[in-house]
């Protein structure tokens, strides 16, 4: 059966080899993981909206219209207006900019910290592991909120602080997960084989350990994106996040959205649905990415 199929697959692979690796990856994503491709499309849509908010948004994000306050969705304002008469569609679009930037950069920082700490302590073990992980213990036993309050009250609220702090908090906590995965990968005989042939530690980490913990790292990253966006909304709620006039989704939810929950549900629904969609999209894309990168799950071309 395989022999019969050979000519056809041969032609297909040779044709696909002409395209670059990125194009080939997109083709595989769409063909093998349509849900993941859908997630990627939604995410890209939000990213585009965020980046092009200045062009796409019908109104400015903080443009007040005292006459049209708390209006339900209509042709003039497709997502309604808030308590100050600001256009919700515009605010949600600008919110995409802030939330996506915060979500991604903080999750990226968190993942890098988790991977560096987790891989070093997990692979090297011994004293390094002992010392670094006791520091992690101490850090994790400290309430996050207290730390956030201290730092924000010293240097004031603002986006870079929020990104940095959330990245650090999630990163240090996540290092445990990566460390556990590294410890189990480290015990494989292929790592022993590389060691016994004289491969350097850096080479073993890069070629043997990291590729085998990527599934966990990808899931760690995609779950962190959602967690960070939600954490930022929590911070905004207690006034430690990105300060108010800036339209973050979390801020919209916990601010006007909560106050006017019964009179103007669209105030909470619009950012809430966007938040859910982005988090969902990132998660399904992450799962698809994890499967596509695993050679064992690769379907026949």
């Amino acid at each position, binding site marked *: 059966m395989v022999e019969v199929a050979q000519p056809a697959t041969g032609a297909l692979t040779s044709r696909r080899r002409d395209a670059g690796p990125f194009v080939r990856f997109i083709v595989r994503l769409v063909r093998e993981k349509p849900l993941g491709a859908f997630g990627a499309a939604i995410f890209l849509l939000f990213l585009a909206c965020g980046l092009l908010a200045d062009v796409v948004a019908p109104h400015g994000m903080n443009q007040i219209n005292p006459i049209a306050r708390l209006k339900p969705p209509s042709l003039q304002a497709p997502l309604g207006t808030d308590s100050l008469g600001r256009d919700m569609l515009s605010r949600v679009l600008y919110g995409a900019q802030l939330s996506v930037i915060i979500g991604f950069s903080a999750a990226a920082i968190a993942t890098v910290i988790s991977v560096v700490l987790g891989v070093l302590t997990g692979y090297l073990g011994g004293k390094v592991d002992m010392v670094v992980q006791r520091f992690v213990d101490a850090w994790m036993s400290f309430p996050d909120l207290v730390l956030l309050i201290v730092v924000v009250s010293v240097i004031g609220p603002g986006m870079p602080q929020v990104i940095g702090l959330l990245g650090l908090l999630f990163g240090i906590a996540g290092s445990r997960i990566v460390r556990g995965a590294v410890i189990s990968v480290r015990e*494989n005989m*292929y790592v*022993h084989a590389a*060691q016994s042939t*004289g491969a350097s530690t850096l080479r073993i980490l890069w*070629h043997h350990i990291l590729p*085998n913990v990527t599934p966990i790292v990808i899931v760690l990253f995609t779950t962190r994106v959602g967690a960070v966006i939600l954490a930022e909304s929590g911070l905004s709620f207690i006034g430690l996040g990105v300060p108010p006039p800036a339209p973050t989704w979390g801020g919209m939810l916990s601010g006007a959205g909560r106050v006017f929950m019964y009179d103007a549900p669209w105030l909470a629904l619009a950012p809430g649905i966007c938040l859910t969609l982005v988090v969902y999209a990132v998660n399904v894309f992450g799962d698809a990415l994890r499967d596509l990168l695993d*050679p*064992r799950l*690769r379907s026949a071309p």
Partner: protein
Amino acid sequence: MPPSENDAPLLCVERLKVHFPLYKGVIFKRRVGAAQAVDGVSFTLRAGETLGLVGESGCGKSTTGLAVLRMTEVNDGRVVFEGRDITRLDRAGMQPIRRRMQMVYQDPYGSLNPRMPVADIIGEPLAVHGLAPGKAERRERARELLQMVGLRADMIDRYPHEFSGGQRQRIGIARAIAVHPGLLICDEPVSALDVSIQAQVVNLFEDLQERFGMAYIFIAHDLAVVRHVSDRIAVMYLGRIVEVAASADLYRQPLHPYTQALLAAIPIPDPAAEAARPRQIVAGEVPSVLRPPSGCRFHTRCPKAMPVCARIEPVLAGEGGTHAVACHLHNAVEGEAA
């Protein structure tokens, strides 16, 4: 090819000891003892020769292999490889030695990185030792090596999961011989394979030895396989070598009661003969390596144990250096009536 007697040995292991310390307590660690995994093992190996290491699990045969590779700490004794004492070499000093000694593993599934294509798996030792500078050169070498071990060169871009157990083991062998080692340590290389595949892989080992003149340390518990591949066989019990002899000698005339029991345990592929032959079963369990028995380590289970066996440790000695045994039945103890 039978190696000549006067060759300088490729590998010389002298009174090798590997002890794994045991600790109790978390904060205040106390050393409560040590597992004497390998306790005074000596042997030599000439270029192109195969030494079989046999014994039941836990006897220290794998640890001996790891100690030769310096993959476990050596507590005492020496490992001399190609005329150099490598026992105390540091990481950098070991680097050129590592090219000359390679290992083939038991588990063909765990020993290949599932996320590496075959080209990179086989090319890794080449890259580590800078033997094929370019990626294209490494690929070309990997293709040759694949063919050498009986696989198709066009399988080079496949991943380990696309191969069967026997094929994976061939990939592991290709990786090991890529850097032209002088010594291959094979730790139960066929015991995880089907019997029909075992024969093919054993034949591959023999072909490659003939072609490249590598020496093998062939660790196994299957005596039939070891007999087939080995020039000499060392039988280990509780961290010691109890008998070492040329393969044919050992099977024809086993001297140590433990070797005799091991050989008697090989099933005969004929039901009538199997039923007719007398049973010789070693009674009891293997004693703990934490507290090995006094004197001869086998005396607690030996059917021919004498009073002297519990008191005095027999030394490995033999007739003309070809067949050595550590047993009071064969080596008279000086000043002591047996």
